């Protein structure tokens, strides 16, 4: 491939990584807000509130863990990202 494509490829990788870092930052805020959601159910006078909250909280927990695992796996430290970026120069665009 022509050399002009390489910077674009690298930039896109860098861009992806930054958005992933944003996601990693936002995740706890989302999580915190969602964990507070059961507080708003209090008004509804339905039996079994604890069971529903229990299922909701643990379900949300599993979702957060999964998302966190996905983000962390793709969010390599900067040094590595730069290294692999440079390594990608040789076989530009092969990945």
């Amino acid at each position: 491939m022509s050399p002009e494509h390489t910077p674009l490829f690298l930039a896109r990788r860098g861009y992806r990584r930054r958005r992933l870092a944003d996601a990693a930052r936002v995740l706890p805020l989302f999580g915190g807000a969602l964990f507070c959601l059961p507080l708003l159910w209090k008004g509804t006078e339905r039996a079994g509130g604890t069971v529903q909250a229990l299922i909701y909280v643990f379900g949300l927990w599993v979702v957060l863990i999964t998302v966190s695992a996905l983000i962390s796996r793709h969010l390599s430290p900067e040094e590595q990202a730069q290294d692999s970026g440079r390594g990608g120069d040789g076989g530009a665009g092969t990945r």
Partner: protein
Amino acid sequence: MTVLNLLVLVCLLYVVLLFGVAFAADRAARIGRASWLRSSAVYTLSLSIYCTAWTFYGAVGFAARSGLEFVTIYLGPTLVMIGWWWTLRRLVRVGRSQRITSIADLISSRYGKSNLLAVLVTVLAVVGTTPYIALQLQSVTLSFAAFAKAEPSPTALPDMQSTALWVAAGLAVFTILFGTRNLDANERHHGVVMAIAMEAVVKLCALLAVGVFVVWGLSGGIGATLARIEASPIARFEVSGSRWVGLTLLSAMAFLTLPRMFQVLVVENEEDEHLRTAAWAFPTYLMLMSLFVVPIAVVGLELLPADANPDLFVLTLPLSEGRDGLAILSFLGGFSSATSMVIVAAIALSTMVSNHVVMPIWLHYSGRAAVVAGDVRTVALMARRLSIGGVLFLGYIYFRLSGGGTALAAIGLIAFVGVAQFLPALMGGLFWRGATRIGALAGLAFGAAVWLYCLFLPSFGPSVLLPQAVFDHGPWGLSWLRPRALFGTEGMDPVIHALMWSLLLNVSAFVLGSLLSFPQPLERLQGAQFVNASDRANAPGGWSGGMAQSEDLLLMAQRIMGAREAQALFASAARRQGVSGYLPEPSPDFLQELERALAGSVGAATAHAMVGQIVGGASVTVEDLMAVADEAAQIMEYSSQLEAKSQELARTARQLRQANETLTQISVQKDGFLSQISHELRTPMTSIRAFSEILRDTQDLTPDEQSKYATIIHDETVRLTRLLDDLLDLSVLENGQVDLNIQTGTLEALLDRSVRAAGGDGEGFRILRDRGSEQVELATDLDRLAQVFINLISNARKYCDAIPPVLSIRATVAEGRLVVDFVDNGSGISTDKHAVIFEKFSRIGQTKASGAGLGLAICREIMERLGGDISYLPGQKGAAFRVTLPLAEDRMAAQ
């Protein structure tokens, strides 16, 4: 055998297993087979000390009393972990780059290495953690008592106090044994971490086993369990919003600031990679830990009598169903939770107490002399061991005084609020460059005061530490200062009330103090380094010093880090600077590196003070200030660069001068040698000629006279031959034409032979040896090696000017190399002569002894041929030479 006896036996076996695991892990780490010890899994498991006995037993009790609210204690840390990219990553990086040893060290280091701040944090941490340790002791004794009560014949009821005492003593022994192996708190405690990881697995398995038993064994499946929950007293979701949010925030804050969590999160962390795994693995652990809490609580409430303590449901439920094995497993889970928390908390607190309280006091009273002469290392280790004992003893005393009553049950959250006071100073320090020491001090002081007044002191109950009148009407009748209703905020939950007010005042004082005060240069420098930790890997240097101080620094470093580590650090720094030997130039970079290394052992503030005592130079250079001051004008930057350049030039010039001096000295010595060698050759020649003439020309010599003259001629020729042999030897060695005659033998036998050949031990010249360390098999040219040893021993005999002269020979094996040190007690060799002693023809001073100055040059050539090295070792009392030699396997491998 009764269940109780079985329990004691299992418990003892478990403790033996723990010691075994810790010992094996330490051993594996020592012989370098420990890569799996550094895995992300072990790191994640070590974080589980967050789940103490308070959460193991207490979560079920919490759930039985107030439903799902218990889960907030786990949600906070979950949010912190999945938000690792924000806070933890920076915290861990700063911790690594600044070689932080504890949370007190981090805060003090950030605010200009202020020891006052460190002491304040340490005291608050000890006050907050002691009751927590007492709580762990209580949980172990309570669970013992639960077993005792289930006995058919409850005559053998164990004494609660003595159980607690035994547990505390055992933990102290374990912690001292495996927690103070090495002084450098930055080095991982492999044994401890491994034991804790194992305990983490045990407690998770125990809780899951009880949970599975309850859900599938007692309730009959998931659907039936959910139905039971709906029918239980905690079916309604009645959680107060302020407590839900407040406790989640509180646990998140405490997760970052608890001394024990800081220890495993930051101090024991080795790379970002671990954090990446823990970001999802640790929340998973927490989720599993709390998965079965509500079912256990509900089934316990249903099946057990109304007066049963819900805090012990995890234990009493299997017991009442006759599942003794499961109950014992559950006991081990609780035991693991309690012990792992106490061990790490004791390590963290003892590091803080010894580095920030004991060491500064000791240094203050022993003055500068101590830095150079005293053995700081032993003192620091001893201080740490005593602190561990002290912390555990305090916990035990607290447990006795409180009588294990209800006051303890609430202490978990109270301790959380106490340590949460560190958060503003910690986070402010990491993210806000404007945060100052005054602000941090004010914030901490206000926060701690409010916490003590509103939560800690009232927790003992009315009329114990605070009189009832204060609760009802406030101090001096000021009703707006009532501890449970500060400024008229009545009807709030006490924990949330104290949390809100203490943090509000803490943050306000911190921000105001920071805005109004002006930081010192060192503070601004540290602030810049901490806040920009991710951007700049290496911070600018801080010290400037002269050559003469290197040896003092080495002396001090040896006393703190141990001789081998210090020498290795100095030697590698010297190699990097292109200087041979053990004394690098005290460049700012090197001094900063040294200070960080020392900080790993004694904390940043103390290390800074010690280096300052020796170097004495400005600790903040112009260059550093430039980096801090954003408003720096370019011209100033230019001049600072000039200054740096000129310093660099001065250093280079000094090195050049040194090299030139060496060359001149060698040239002078060569001239001297030529006249010396002519003289040495001439003297025997003259007498040989004279006596042979006498023999030839004189007719009437008696046989006695004849033999006497012939003997003289013979002796002189022998002397000549020896001199010529030496010269020949050296030239052969230098040209590499020598054949090595490889033999095997022990170092001990070789040294015996060398000592004998060099004139033996005794008669006013003593040789100290450690025969135990000399049992090393050698496979090398033993004759050549003996030649080196003989030379060194007879040199010491000739030149050591102490009365009485003593030579000590020490052998060690490190990294596949044999190291033999020959250290005498004389006046040594002055620094300027170090460079030339191994040169040919070099003789130092006009010494009484004869010799052509070839001995050490030959030694050096021999050691080079043998693949080893000989060097002068500075920083000892007298002259010291170090011989290093690769051991057999390495030689074979190399060939």
